[in-house]
């Protein structure tokens, strides 16, 4: 660059310099992408025989699928400035509800699934409604929902089945039709892939498009960045937030259904503890914990990193206990990278907050 003495003529070219490479490094997902590449190479060196193969890829994608679906939905919610700690347990609740309706009440799979969808959407709506009406942190509101559902999952299941598992769901009418849609196994080059993975990738692209290319996407960034500013320019903040809570609940339903059709049963403990994994996927993908910034594709890459860790630890013959240690290290690395982004914006954010405090004082 130092040797290039001839400057571009048009002033607009100030930005174009650096071109593709710089454009790549400016992307939100770049940290997650580099992290994924490093981890893939690491396991490729440690356990190359299974890892560098189509089977390795199919295993990673299958592990990443359900985390990815949830991670992408949770990323949208986090960009919108909120958390949903009930997202994990929702996968269990919807699965149990569908299972009980199908097995105990003898319903067809489709109406049973539809009932669970309505229930999930309702819980999502209630989560969102409570958060926007009470202005309490969503962390607390959805933590309450988490415990309520966690208790109900065990309690109701025990009352209905005398156990904490609903089995034999595959005897329900149309079970295999549902499975064909949600979790059909198919071979590519000798490795097994599932339609659930296709759903995940498709939903990631839809979410990315909504975020980047639609009005609603712009509103998601706005309500997460500064809900008051968003409201001032006419963004219906409350409706956007409620829609986002309904999205994570609906994603929980979808994952719940995928588990039911794969396992043919539903366990009361399903999904508990996973809510943090979704959040970590979103954070690794570039979402700020403070909202207003992030990426759906990044969250999907975050899920792939998890998939790689789960599969890689097995392939390398390590004790799977180390999975959570790995999880913690990834989270820490991601947060440190994201912190840099936040700092750059901090100056103006605090100026805006100061202006608002003065305004509030005046109103008081």
């Amino acid at each position, binding site marked *: 660059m130092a040797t290039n003495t001839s400057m571009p003529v048009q002033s607009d070219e100030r930005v174009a310099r650096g071109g593709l490479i710089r454009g790549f490094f400016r992307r939100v997902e770049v940290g997650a992408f580099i992290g994924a590449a490093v981890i893939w190479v690491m396991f490729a060196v440690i356990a190359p025989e299974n890892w560098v193969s189509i089977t390795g890829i199919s295993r990673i994608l299958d592990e990443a699928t359900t985390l990815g679906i949830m991670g992408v939905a949770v990323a949208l919610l986090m960009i919108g400035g909120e958390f949903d700690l009930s997202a994990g347990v929702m996968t269990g609740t919807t699965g149990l509800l569908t299972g009980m309706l199908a097995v105990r009440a003898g319903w067809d799979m489709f109406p049973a699934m539809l009932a669970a969808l309505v229930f999930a959407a309702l819980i999502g709506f209630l989560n969102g409604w409570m958060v926007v009406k009470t202005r309490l942190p969503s962390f607390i509101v959805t933590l309450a929902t988490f415990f309520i559902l966690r208790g109900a999952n065990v309690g109701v299941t025990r009352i209905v089945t005398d156990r904490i598992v609903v089995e034999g769901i595959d005897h329900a009418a149309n079970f295999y039709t549902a499975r064909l849609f949600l979790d059909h196994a198919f071979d590519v080059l000798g490795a097994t892939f599932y339609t659930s993975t296709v759903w995940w990738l498709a939903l990631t692209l839809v979410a990315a498009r909504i975020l980047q290319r639609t009005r609603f996407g712009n509103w998601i960034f706005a309500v997460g960045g500064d809900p008051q*500013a968003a409201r001032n*320019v006419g*963004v219906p903040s409350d409706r956007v937030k409620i829609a986002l809570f309904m999205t994570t609940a609906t994603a929980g339903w979808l994952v719940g259904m995928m588990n039911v059709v794969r396992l043919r049963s539903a366990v009361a403990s399903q999904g508990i503890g996973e809510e943090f994994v979704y959040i970590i996927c979103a954070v690794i993908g570039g979402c700020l914990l403070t909202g207003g910034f992030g990426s759906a594709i990044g969250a999907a890459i975050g899920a792939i990193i998890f998939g790689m860790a789960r599969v890689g630890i097995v392939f390398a013959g390590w004790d799977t206990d180390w999975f959570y240690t790995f999880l913690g290290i990834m989270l820490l690395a991601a947060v440190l990278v994201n912190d840099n982004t936040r700092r750059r914006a901090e100056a103006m*954010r605090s*100026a805006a907050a100061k*202006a*608002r405090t003065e305004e509030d004082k005046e109103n008081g």
Partner: protein
Amino acid sequence: MAEPLLEVRNMTKLFGSVIALNRVSATVNRGEVTCLLGDNGAGKSTLIKILSGVYPPTEGEYYFEGHAVTLRSPREARAMGIATVYQDLSLLPLMPIWRNFFLGAEPETGSLFLRHFDDKFAKLTVREELLKMGIDIRDPDQPVGTMSGGERQSIAIARAVYFGAKVLILDEPTAALGVKQAAIVLRYIAQARARNLGVIFITHNPQHAYPVGDRFIILKRGRALGNWTKAELSQEAMVQHMSGAEELEILTSELQQISRPDAESQVAATTNG
């Protein structure tokens, strides 16, 4: 003279038992600047939030272009042509300029499932509109948080003007700015007036208000002290009304005390009170 562009009569707003605004009336004409002056706590912010549809008034009448209106949301106000530029500018620091500019009124293109935010149009328009205000932005993708205070203010004003504002409400646009940057903002206000917009300019600085103002309303403790045209009010009289003669006397005596080096503790006591 035609009817005022915007007029409110006897606006009252209660927050619980607190009377934030007590029977305040105001008018704005086309091609005029109405200055809304007053100290902190005078009710300026409450009045503009009513004007811009954020708060419903407890009592009072609201006329826009001669018709009585009831605003249910800021969105409705903006759709009618009442645009508000808040002190915090309602800009998102982490968001690129073009996304900020069109926030809440995103241009869309394509049909049905392919309907999307027209980003090409947005980026081009942002460059053009800011160039009209004398700001050459290098990159519409630049996050707003990385820009200077004056630049951000001008983005907010350019945004309001672009979206067909008939009335432009500016909440303390010069408060956080230095002399030079404030002068630029005052020039934008004069420009907006020249384009036949009605401007409501909120400030507590008489030196900023008097040069650009055509009409002055001074608020104090929720009440309007008066509603003057420029011909009826000198700058000195304005300052007198704003601060109040007796308060000026108290201030003068306080200042005398401060100038005595041995009176430091007394000063601390007075400022805390």
